[in-house]
Every structure is written in structure tokens, then in C-alpha cells.
């Protein structure tokens, strides 16, 4: 049963994408660690980390595509799940600092000592153990998404209204995490990490490993997403996206399908956040900013909604663009992003990957069948 499901997901496209990602996961760290700095193919560490960050974003974009591209749920709050995963990892990293902090308290992180706290709050228990933190990386975003989705989908909130409440969710979390008395470092968040599983987070080898892991996790989740979208469940999801009431009258319990894919997607976003934090070295409430979630949606739109490959391409191209652009004209990045979104919506409604796919399909066979990508006219 499960093997059938997995084999289903391993189609040619998935094989190619997974192979490319594995190659990247191996070659980039090798070019960083094994080639001398003056070698033309040497990849400097800062670039490895920068790309690691982009691949974490790509995983977030993949999560957004799963709910938006395949089930029509336009989430404008996915950065909340990303940030929650990031905080779970950040809490582990904080507790690894131990006596090396400014106040050298063996248990309490610096900011708690600063706030005159005497004891570790209960929700920080267990985060000194990696396995526990890793579990929380998926469980916390998953549980919050489940509860949120349970109410939202059961009461049949859809479309714009759902998008708005996802924004409200991430905004509420933003405000909560800003508060010092919440116990997550307030405004400053969690930072000054020293090591992860005993390895120095600043070391080249650690950074290369984190990069490789990020890309490998992306490959794993791409494969899972591919298997899901090719299964009958995936077809039901597309049915929900295109004709929700039709799906209901066929006897499918639409809210359960939405809840499944929504919760899974939130967990993926959590993993993305957890991979992101040790590479950038900080997690603070600004990760909950509503604009971040909107940016993630733009990556998906640019790359191609409902294609799985598109969000990866979109996240990486847009973020390279962002890095370049903010170097040249920092004040205008948001305008550029807005303009990009408008241009894509008007001229490339299927995004980069969707357009390329349509082009190939038309060349090969005029009566092209079967692309699950949505018709643009929505």
C-alpha cells in the first residue's frame, strides 16, 4: 500500500528534480570545503549560507504551493509556521549556549537573566535535547495549523476571508512574540548561537552540512509532495480547488481533506524555519510579519502555482533578485516586488515553470492533456 504510494510519486519529473537537488547538496559543499579559495569553482562560505537560506525559503514555497496550488487555499500566514519551526530550533540553540552566555547562567538564556527570571518557564523544558526540539519543530506548527484549520474549514471559511484570517493569525503571533513576558526573547528574539549537536554553528563544515541538509530536506519533501499530488487524494484536492461543492456532492468530506494538506504544509514550513535559523543565526518576531507570508505567495506565483517545481524556482530566483536589488536600490525592493507580481499575473499567469510546461506540451502534442496546474482565470 505504502510502497505503491511512494512509487506513484517517483515519476520521471520527481526523479530528475530529486537527482538535481542531491547533486547540489553534494557539489556545493564539496566546492566550498575541498577546493582552495583561489580555485575558480570555489564557493565561498557566505554564498553557501546565502544559498542555504534560499533553499529554506524554497521549502516554505513548496509548502505554500501544496495548499494554494493544489487545494486552492490561499494562505497569507505561512510565515507563521515557518517562524514557529524556527523558534523551536532557536530554543534548542539557546539552551546549547549554557555558561558561554554573557551572564554565564548554566540553564537560563541571557534574556531571562536580564529580565530577572529565576526559573526556566515550563515551555522551555526539554529544548536542551535535540530530538525534543526536532519534534517540536513539526508538532507546534502542526498543532496550531490543525486547530486553526479545524475551525476554519468546518465553518467553511473560504477564499478571501480565509486569507484574511491567516494574516490575522500571523499578525497575532507577531504581537505575542514581541512581548518580553511571553518568554521568547521579545523584540530581540533568540540569537548568539554557539553550537548545534556539538558543532560550532560558525564553522565552515557546519555551514556546509546545514546547507546540504536543507537541500536534502527539500528533496525529501518534494518527493512526498509529488507522491501526494499524484495520488487519488491529490486529485480530490484539485477537485476541491476547482469545484468544491462538486466534491462534496460526490461524498468527500472536504474539510478533512483541507485539514490534512493544511496541517502537513504547516509542518513542512516548520521544518523550513528550523533549517533557516541556524544558518542565519537569529530568529526574531519580524519573521511573523504579514509581508513575509505575502512574499512567499509571490515566489509561488512567479515560479508557477500548482507545479511543485515552480515554487522552488520562484523562491530562488526572486531571492537572488532581492539580494541583488537591495544591494543596488534598497528602498525600492518592495515596489520592485509588487511590480514583479503584477507583471507575472498579467503576462505569465502560470508562472515560469507553468509557462515552460505549457510550451513543451503544445509543441509535443497540440491536444495536450493533463497538467494539474490551475487555469489562470481564477
Amino acid at each position, binding site marked *: *500500500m*505504502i510502497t*505503491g*504510494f511512494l512509487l506513484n510519486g517517483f515519476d520521471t519529473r520527481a526523479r530528475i528534480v530529486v537527482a538535481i537537488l542531491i547533486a547540489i547538496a553534494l557539489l556545493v559543499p564539496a566546492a566550498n570545503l575541498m577546493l582552495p579559495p583561489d580555485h575558480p569553482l570555489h564557493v565561498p562560505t557566505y554564498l553557501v549560507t546565502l544559498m542555504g537560506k534560499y533553499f529554506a525559503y524554497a521549502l516554505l514555497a513548496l509548502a505554500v504551493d501544496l495548499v494554494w496550488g493544489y487545494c486552492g487555499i490561499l494562505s497569507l500566514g505561512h510565515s507563521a509556521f515557518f517562524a514557529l519551526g524556527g523558534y523551536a530550533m532557536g530554543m534548542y540553540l539557546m539552551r546549547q549556549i549554557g555558561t558561554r552566555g554573557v551572564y554565564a547562567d548554566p540553564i537560563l538564556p541571557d534574556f531571562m537573566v536580564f529580565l530577572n527570571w529565576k526559573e526556566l518557564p515550563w515551555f522551555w523544558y526539554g529544548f536542551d535535547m535535540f530530538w525534543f526540539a526536532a519534534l517540536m519543530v513539526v508538532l507546534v506548527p502542526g498543532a496550531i495549523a490543525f486547530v486553526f484549520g479545524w475551525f476554519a474549514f468546518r465553518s467553511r471559511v473560504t477564499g478571501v476571508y480565509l486569507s484574511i484570517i491567516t494574516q490575522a493569525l500571523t499578525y497575532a503571533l507577531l504581537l505575542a512574540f514581541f512581548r518580553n513576558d511571553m518568554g521568547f526573547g521579545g523584540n530581540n528574539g533568540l540569537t548568539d548561537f554557539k553550537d548545534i549537536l556539538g558543532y560550532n554553528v560558525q564553522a565552515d563544515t557546519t555551514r556546509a552540512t546545514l546547507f546540504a541538509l536543507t537541500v536534502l530536506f527539500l528533496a525529501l519533501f518534494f518527493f512526498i509532495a509529488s507522491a*501526494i499530488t499524484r*495520488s*487519488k*487524494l491529490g*486529485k*480530490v484536492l*484539485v*477537485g476541491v480547488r*476547482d*469545484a468544491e*461543492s*462538486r*466534491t*462534496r*456532492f*460526490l*461524498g*468527500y*468530506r*472536504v474539510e*478533512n*481533506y483541507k485539514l*490534512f494538506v493544511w496541517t502537513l504544509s504547516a509542518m513542512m514550513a516548520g521544518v523550513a524555519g528550523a533549517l533557516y535559523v541556524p544558518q542565519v543565526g537569529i530568529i526574531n518576531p519580524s519573521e511573523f510579519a504579514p509581508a513575509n507570508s505575502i512574499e512567499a505567495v509571490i515566489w509561488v506565483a512567479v515560479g508557477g502555482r500548482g507545479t511543485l517545481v515552480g515554487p522552488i524556482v520562484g523562491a530562488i530566483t526572486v531571492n537572488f533578485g532581492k539580494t541583488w536589488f537591495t544591494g543596488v536600490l534598497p528602498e525600492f525592493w518592495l515596489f520592485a516586488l509588487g511590480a514583479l507580481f503584477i507583471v507575472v499575473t498579467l503576462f505569465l499567469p502560470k508562472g515560469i515553470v507553468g509557462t515552460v510546461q505549457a510550451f513543451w506540451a503544445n509543441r509535443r502534442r497540440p*491536444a495536450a*492533456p*493533463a*497538467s*494539474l*496546474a*490551475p*487555469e489562470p482565470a481564477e
Partner: protein
Amino acid sequence: MTDKAEGTLLYLDGVNKAFDGFKAINNLSLVLAPGEMRAIIGPNGAGKTTMMDIITGKTKPDTGDVLFEGSTDLTRLDEAKIANLGIGRKFQKPTVFESHTVEDNIVLALKAKRGAFATLFHQTTRAEAARVDELLATTRLTDKRKMLAARLSHGQKQWLEIGMLLAQEPRLLLVDEPAAGMTDAETAETAILLREIAKTQSVVVVEHDMTFVRDLGVKVTVLHEGTVLAEGSLDAVSSNPKVVEVYLGR
């Protein structure tokens, strides 16, 4: 009340539904026997679609009884439950999954477990594949099976939706204006198909096309302003002065 409902497949009694004070359904009563095929006619806005909405759980009536098989209270159930009881529905505006292939549309409709985990790990069985072939042949869509449903003509979408309805193997089929947008030849074929279906299942058909209703050759219920105006053979109801007035007085 339940005594009267005994032995019926579908039993509506004293059903009322108002939208913002406008009575779309007004003290409607209708009884369908097991195995029966019934045609429903009536002018625009008579409440035909709203009646189907009430039976399938899309709309909750304000008052009245809606019973399936004499005892199941449909007003307490949601769309998915009602569908799984064996009531299938074709919408007035053909509604198929446009970005799926014709074949996948049928596959999604096939009678099977509807839970998320069942579909996640589902593998198409040989019996299912055979059933899909059979349904595609019945609806004359075999050569279009790999085509996206979005590319079908209006009439073909209607047929695909009927095919999906059959794939569910319902005990009661509610078919809203199946011949709309079809050529005369297609309309005639649709009537033949529905008569074929009616041999094994109960069917309620809403239709404006009188030739089509005549082709069906079954008992007719005339709805007007949310209530039953007349019931009987097509000839009987069309000579009923009240019906004539409603249709000519428009």
C-alpha cells in the same frame, strides 16, 4: 407522518424555505416510490433547483419533513453524508473537474471509500478500471478519456457529469436540466440514457424541454412558486387549466 413515508424512497412533506422573506419553497410535498422516475417541470424560479438543494443538504429547510427511505431525516445530514447514503446529483450548470482528465473525473466519482487516508493510498483496481471503461463507453467519451474536461463541449460536459453520477452508483439520481445546451440529437440520446438508468435506479429529472419530457414518458410534477401545482401524465398536466395559465401567463 412517518407512517405515510413508509415504503417510499423520497418523502417531502410541508417543506418551506424562505430567502430573505421570499418564499422559494412553499408547503411543498412530493413522494417518490422506489424505482420510480419522475419529471419535474415548472417556470423559471419555480423552486426546482432549491428543492434539489434541500434534498442534498445544500440548503436547510425552515420547516417540513425530508425523509429518505421512509426514515432517514435528510435535514440533519450534510452533503457528504447524503451523497454517501446514495443520493447523487447533477447540477443545472454542468460542474465537472475542469483541470482533470475525463477519465480522472470518473475515477473520482467511482463508488469507493471516501476517507482521506483511503484515497491517499488508493491504487486503482482492475475492477475499477473496467468500470471506468464501461462508463466512458456509456457516455460516449471513450476517445476523449485523456482530454482535460475543460475542453469538452457543453453537451459532453453534461454527459460526463451523468457518467460521474452513475459512477457513484446512487440509489436516487437528481438530474437538473440534463438537456440544456444540447442539440436535438443529443437531447434524444440523453432521454434514452436516462430511461436506461431508470431501469435500475430511481431518478428525478428537472427539465424545461417538453419534447424531452415526453420522450421520458413518466409521471410529471409541475412546480410553481415553490409548491406543487399539478401531478400526472404529461398530457393530463398540460391540459390542466392552472398549468396552462402559469405557462401562458408568463
